[in-house]
């Protein structure tokens, strides 16, 4: 039976409700359930679940609802009680903290200097406007903000000499403080400006691993280097880091920018008195070198070059995996069955998935993906995965009404358990630690790998853990739990991808 409960004018944030939705979804007697605010998207998702009720009509984004298909009245009562319990537990956790209702009262609590905005996209620009008017720098995590608003807000911020990071900015480290999805990296003299969230995380983590440190990590949001936005935030960030006394080396990370934007950036790189490492992932390295910048073959190379330069050394090429790893690749490949032919990459970090596609695409004669570079390899139908596939599970199509898989590994677990098959030769994955991420993503991947083994599915599992010793999750324990599940773990995605290539290259690809 279909049941609906509505509470008018009760607001809870979307991630809280998505996690609750998932928790109560596994209760006995619950066939389908949606717990959410009455946004258009949530109402549409509810309809897709086949739940219809006049009570849902006319709801607004200020109204809370539970819509469920349950076996009995008793199940619905238990469901409502459970949701109430989870919401109360949430409310109690932050009950002692004073929460000002408006900007003016918030500004009186302390000398604020940055606003971190993660409300739904349709409201985010208005809040950013207000923050900029109050003289605050802004990190806008929210996405689905029109590009016209982005341009307007960034121009406004630039006019006030404020930073407007985002929209859709997932990562920043300002003055050693991790904002949104970022890692606890050591402080140091390498400044980063990044348009790619997990790309910036990977580079900052590897700088830490190589013994360097980060002065600032300025996020720009993924559209910053487009023709329309013109690289406003990257240019501001680059100029600020050139001026910053604590920064000796600068790293820029982005997908290839629009030509006109790249030209502007190369001009500043040319004039920079400080070395600039440029990883415009997959872009032609020649214009970077012509501008006096240091071009990169992958994210690890960006980090390694930056650390070498900060020590006054000349950057070197990355050494390929040594004979010991080549032997290991031959060994594990020899244990594969005849039918185990394909690569399956299941990523939570978009830039890391992108890196896998770029580094392995040619070797494997093309990889199918939901974020493919060409139409031919665009994968829309997930029912046929008997080919080389890499999925970015953080992409919009997988996150409708669900938290990002870095927050909640549920989506990836589902794909691990349904997509990996007896034809999968290599399972490639990332495991991103740090603030914002799930408390133990490694254990979740390990759990799924163990389940696959129970079903007789045993691909070579290859992954990397993007994390530091200082992260809230335990880095060592994360690596250990994955290795105990039989996975081969590398310190970088680039190395994991290289190893996957070696295994697949043993007469199989």
């Amino acid at each position, binding site marked *: 039976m279909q049941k609906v409960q509505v509470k008018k004018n009760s607001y809870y944030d979307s991630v809280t409700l998505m996690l609750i939705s998932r928790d109560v979804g596994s209760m006995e007697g619950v066939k389908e359930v949606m717990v959410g605010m009455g946004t258009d998207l949530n109402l549409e998702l509810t309809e897709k679940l086949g739940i219809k009720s006049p009570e849902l009509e006319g709801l607004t984004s200020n109204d809370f609802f539970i819509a469920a298909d349950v076996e009995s009245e008793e199940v619905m009562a238990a469901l409502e009680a459970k949701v109430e319990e989870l919401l109360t537990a949430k409310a109690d956790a932050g009950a002692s903290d004073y929460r000002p209702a408006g900007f003016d009262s918030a500004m009186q609590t302390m000398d604020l200097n*940055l606003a971190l905005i*993660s409300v739904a996209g349709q409201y985010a620009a208005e809040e950013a406007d207000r923050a900029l008017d109050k003289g605050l720098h802004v990190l806008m995590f929210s996405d689905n903000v029109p590009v016209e608003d982005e341009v307007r807000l960034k121009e406004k911020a630039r006019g006030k000499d404020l930073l407007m990071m985002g929209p859709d900015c997932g990562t920043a480290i300002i003055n050693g403080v991790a904002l949104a999805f970022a890692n606890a990296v050591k402080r140091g003299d390498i400044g980063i400006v990044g348009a790619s969230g997990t790309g910036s995380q990977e580079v900052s983590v590897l700088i830490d691993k190589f013994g360097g440190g980060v002065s600032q990590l300025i996020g720009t949001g993924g559209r910053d280097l487009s023709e329309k936005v013109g690289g406003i935030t990257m240019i501001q960030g680059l100029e600020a880091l050139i001026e910053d006394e604590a920064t000796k080396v600068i790293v820029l990370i982005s997908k290839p920018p629009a030509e006109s934007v790249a030209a502007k950036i190369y001009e500043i790189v040319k004039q920079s008195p400080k070395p600039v490492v440029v990883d415009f992932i997959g872009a032609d390295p020649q214009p970077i070198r012509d501008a006096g910048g240091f071009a990169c073959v992958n994210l690890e190379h960006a980090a390694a070059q930056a650390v070498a330069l900060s020590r006054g050394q000349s950057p070197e090429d990355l050494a390929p995996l040594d004979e010991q790893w080549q032997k290991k690749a031959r060994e594990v490949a020899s244990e594969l069955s005849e039918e185990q032919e394909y690569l399956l990459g299941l990523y939570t970090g978009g830039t890391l998935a992108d890196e896998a596609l770029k580094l392995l695409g040619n070797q494997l004669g093309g990889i199918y993906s939901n974020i493919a570079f060409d139409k031919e390899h665009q994968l829309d139908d997930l029912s046929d995965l008997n080919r080389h596939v890499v999925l970015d599970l953080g992409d919009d199509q997988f996150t409708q009404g669900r938290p990002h898989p870095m927050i909640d590994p549920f989506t990836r677990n589902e794909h691990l358990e349904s997509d990996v098959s007896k034809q999968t030769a290599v399972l490639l994955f990332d495991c991103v630690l740090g603030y914002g991420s799930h408390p133990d993503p490694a254990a979740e991947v390990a759990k799924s790998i163990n389940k696959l083994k129970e079903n007789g599915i045993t691909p070579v599992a290859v992954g990397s853990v993007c994390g530091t010793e200082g992260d809230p999750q335990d880095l060592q324990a994360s690596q250990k739990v994955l290795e105990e599940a039989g996975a081969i773990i590398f310190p970088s995605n680039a190395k994991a991808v290289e190893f996957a290539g070696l295994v697949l290259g043993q007469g199989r690809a």
Partner: protein
Amino acid sequence: MKLNNLFKSELKVLNIGLEGFYNDLKQQKTDTVWLNWKPRSSSNKKSMSLLDKLRKK
């Protein structure tokens, strides 16, 4: 420039939105305040723009 002043100041963050980000900042012992945010006027754009006009007066 103001932007570089930010790098020399102690970061103090106004969190507008997700509770998790607020908790992460507190865990890092960063001064932060969490706005008790609610969507305005149920996304009624017309009334929002009227409110904006009133606010500017």
